[in-house]
Structures are given as structure tokens and as C-alpha cells.
């Protein structure tokens, strides 16, 4: 069974601090996606990583896909209150479950001004 785990579950930091959140699995994923969700809204896609070892940057956000494609990290530099939200990682199922999308439980981030 493919599962994605995320850590930490909750994170509360001061504005300007740096942070890293993690997404891990014992299974290989062909790709991983990161989403951010604000309260009362649907998740919004941030990035897709496909190649093992890949690093993608989106302004102050840096995403990395592990070499073995079993894990990913999201690093935020100089966090701002607008970064507050639930960060979800997700990946496609394999073989006969390809049409399913596997989501992690999320990391809830609160950035305090």
C-alpha cells in the first residue's frame, strides 16, 4: 500500500524564520506534487517534481525530490504570514491504481507576524 507521511504535523514560527517540511514514503513515486491550502479553500498546486534529485525554486520556496524518489522536502526562506496554511504532498498511484492520487496528511504551518 502506498502511503505518504509528512512531518512535522504542526509548525508555528515567527516571521522571518526559515523552515523545512518533509514528505516521506517507503514506496517509489513517479512524481510528487506539493499543494498549499488556506482555510475554507481548495488546495492549490505549487509544484511538481519528477526526476530523482530534482530541485525546484518558487520565489522563497525550494522543493527537492529525493534521489530514490521516495521522499521530498519543502524549504521556506524568511517565512511570511502569507505562507500560513496546510501544506500537502501527493503522488500518483502505481500500476492498477494510477488513476488514484495519494495524499499525505499535511503540515499545518502558522507564521506569526
Amino acid at each position: 500500500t502506498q502511503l505518504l507521511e509528512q512531518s512535522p504535523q504542526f509548525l508555528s514560527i515567527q516571521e522571518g524564520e526559515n523552515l523545512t517540511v518533509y514528505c516521506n514514503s517507503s514506496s517509489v513515486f513517479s512524481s510528487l506534487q506539493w499543494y498549499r491550502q488556506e482555510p475554507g479553500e481548495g488546495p492549490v498546486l505549487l509544484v511538481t517534481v519528477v526526476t530523482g534529485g530534482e530541485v525546484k525554486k518558487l520565489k522563497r520556496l525550494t522543493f527537492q525530490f529525493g534521489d530514490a524518489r521516495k521522499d521530498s522536502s519543502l524549504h521556506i526562506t524568511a517565512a511570511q504570514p502569507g505562507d500560513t496554511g496546510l501544506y500537502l504532498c501527493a503522488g500518483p498511484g502505481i500500476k492498477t491504481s494510477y488513476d488514484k492520487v495519494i495524499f499525505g496528511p499535511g503540515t499545518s504551518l502558522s507564521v506569526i507576524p
Partner: protein
Amino acid sequence: SQTIHQWPATLVQPVGSPLSLECTVEGTSNPNLYWYRQAAGRGLQLLFYSVGIGQISSEVPQNLSASRPQDRQFILSSKKLLLSDSGFYLCAWRLSYEQYFGPGTRLTVT
């Protein structure tokens, strides 16, 4: 560009009443469509997905059902709501690896 609509935005229903949530997608053809439920501050629970008209896969057997009467329409239903059906319901469509979500429906069962 593609857009996804959900309605209603909020709903308060008594236990035992029926439910119908609707999702429509514009700007794409034959999308994979998904229904998720989310408890407060937590991850997404996949309820149903569909790869085509009339094709429904159920992930969580319970008192909910789904239908896809048209290519870009996905409906979530229940004949009798339970208190445990309360939550935030999200519809999504999929393009390649990525999913795109609607604004969600907040359902409170009283």
C-alpha cells in the same frame, strides 16, 4: 482555461435528510474527476473517482454515492445523512500528474 465549480458553498442539513453536491468542470474534455472529504485542518480522504461517464470507483464504502451523468459533471449524493458526514467536501479534476480543486462545500449535519 479550465475552471471547476462546486455548489452549494455551505450547507446545513439535519440527520437523515438527503444530500446532493454538484461539481462541474469547464474547458477540458474527459477529465478524471474526484470527490474528497476533509476534516478540519487535516488531509484529504478520497471518496470516489471517475475516469469517464458512468464509471465510478468507490474508495470508502458508506452511505455516500457518486454519479457522473455527463462528461464534466460529478455528483455526490446520500439518501440519509449521518452526523459523521459533516466536513469539507472537495471536487477535483486531474491533468497528468496534477490535480485542480474546486472551492469546496462546507457541510454541517445537525
